[in-house]
């Protein structure tokens, strides 16, 4: 009995060691976003709270905590309060199977990729319920758009994942990373480049980020599905969105860019110089690059129209990914190149 409790407490400690740094990363990702986009638009970004604005996320959090949570009179109260939790819980739960370095993983399950696909699909319910229970037309239209967009891009994302599974022969994320060991040229991004492209575009659409952010579309439907939320309810949606951005970038690194493996592996001199670097530092560096890409895309591209988004998803990404899954299957079957030997 005591042993069972100790195991449970140990698990909780490990989970907190994942969630708390993640929360910190989310907080500072919002600051990084405002700073980087500010610089790209020749502005300063926030610079009043603390030195260079480093306390800005804390100030924002505190302010949101002290703001009234408005319950619209026409809303369905229970669903209105529950839906932010329904969005946040899966956004956090996906981190249970993410390997941060060799052996550094909370739950090393064999069905890792399947679990991730299931959890990311669950987020749609929260969005749909939030929009419906608000009983406001902007929220409703926003959630319809978001749901249709997310499920459309989930198909192409699923095909991209199937391509990675073909190449690695495993659904265990640690195994998938180890399959890419041996140097940059072993990373799956090279044989699976079209699938990586499909994955990344789908990922941006799945997280409802610019240039595919019609679900929020400030200029047309104010803030989409969370227009009626204020204070902490809004903060939780925000938290989930940024946690999802970090997760999707992490998955891109794990599946296509060798996870925690060093990019200098197998290169004569550089490989030795960087051999001391722990894997997790490489992982975090690669994730940061992808997060920067997110912000860069947001600062660069104008918003797509809704029909353009649906056309891109159904008529370009799905056929492209389906085709490349077949090509990868043929590669694997006939043992083409160093990746499928």
């Amino acid at each position: 009995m005591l042993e069972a409790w100790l195991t449970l407490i140990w698990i909780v400690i490990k989970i907190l060691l994942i969630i708390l740094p993640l929360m910190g990363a989310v907080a500072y990702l919002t600051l990084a976003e405002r700073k980087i986009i500010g610089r790209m638009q020749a502005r300063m970004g926030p610079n009043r709270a603390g030195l260079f604005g480093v306390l800005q996320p804390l100030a924002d959090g505190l302010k949101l905590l002290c703001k009234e949570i408005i319950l619209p009179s026409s809303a369905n109260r229970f669903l209105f309060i529950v839906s932010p939790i329904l969005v946040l819980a899966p956004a956090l739960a996906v981190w249970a199977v993410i390997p941060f370095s060799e052996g550094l993983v909370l739950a090393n399950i064999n069905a890792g990729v399947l679990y991730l696909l299931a959890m990311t699909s669950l987020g749609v319910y929260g969005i749909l319920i939030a929009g419906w229970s608000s009983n406001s037309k902007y929220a409703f239209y926003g959630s319809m758009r978001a749901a249709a967009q997310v499920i459309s891009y989930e198909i192409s994302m699923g095909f991209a994942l199937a391509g990675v599974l073909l190449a690695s022969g495993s659904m265990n994320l640690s195994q998938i990373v180890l399959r890419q060991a041996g140097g940059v040229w072993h990373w799956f991004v090279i044989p699976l480049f079209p699938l990586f492209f499909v994955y990344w575009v789908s990922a941006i659409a799945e997280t409802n980020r610019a240039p595919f952010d019609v679900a929020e579309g400030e200029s047309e439907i104010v803030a989409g599905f969370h227009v009626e939320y204020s204070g902490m309810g809004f903060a939780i949606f925000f938290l989930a969105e940024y946690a999802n951005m970090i997760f999707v970038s992490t998955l891109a690194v794990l599946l296509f860019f060798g996870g925690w493996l060093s990019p200098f592996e197998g290169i004569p001199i550089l490989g030795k110089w960087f051999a001391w670097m722990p894997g997790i530092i490489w992982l975090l560096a690669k994730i940061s690059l992808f997060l920067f890409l997110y912000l860069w895309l947001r600062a660069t591209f104008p918003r797509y129209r809704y029909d353009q988004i649906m056309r891109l998803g159904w008529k370009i990404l799905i056929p492209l990914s389906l085709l490349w899954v077949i090509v990868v299957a043929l590669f694997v079957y006939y043992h083409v190149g160093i990746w499928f030997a």
Partner: protein
Amino acid sequence: MLLKEYLPIVVFIALGIGFGLVPLLAGFLIAPSRPNKAKESPYECGFEAIETGRAPFDLRFYLVAILFILFDLETAFLFPWAVSLRKISSLGFFSMLFFLGLLLIGFLYEWCKGALEWE
């Protein structure tokens, strides 16, 4: 081994719900609550809301949902095949290619029928 590996996931989901619940409760406790009629009405810019949120919506959203179910099932079919491709015989390999070919025909049919159009 199997179920033991999944215990951390269950705990993680529970903690994830907790991480949503606690800030919300804190918000309800700390933040002021001074409701009035204008504040509680659905959002509208500058005037009283004309329509309610229960408005009719485009039928194509249903179509997308139906197509999604078809294709999502198919990815569910693809996953086990993809993982075990190195272990199955050529029969398994080519029957899946045949299945994907059939699916492609269905997809092209949808496309030609205009099910994927948004204007």
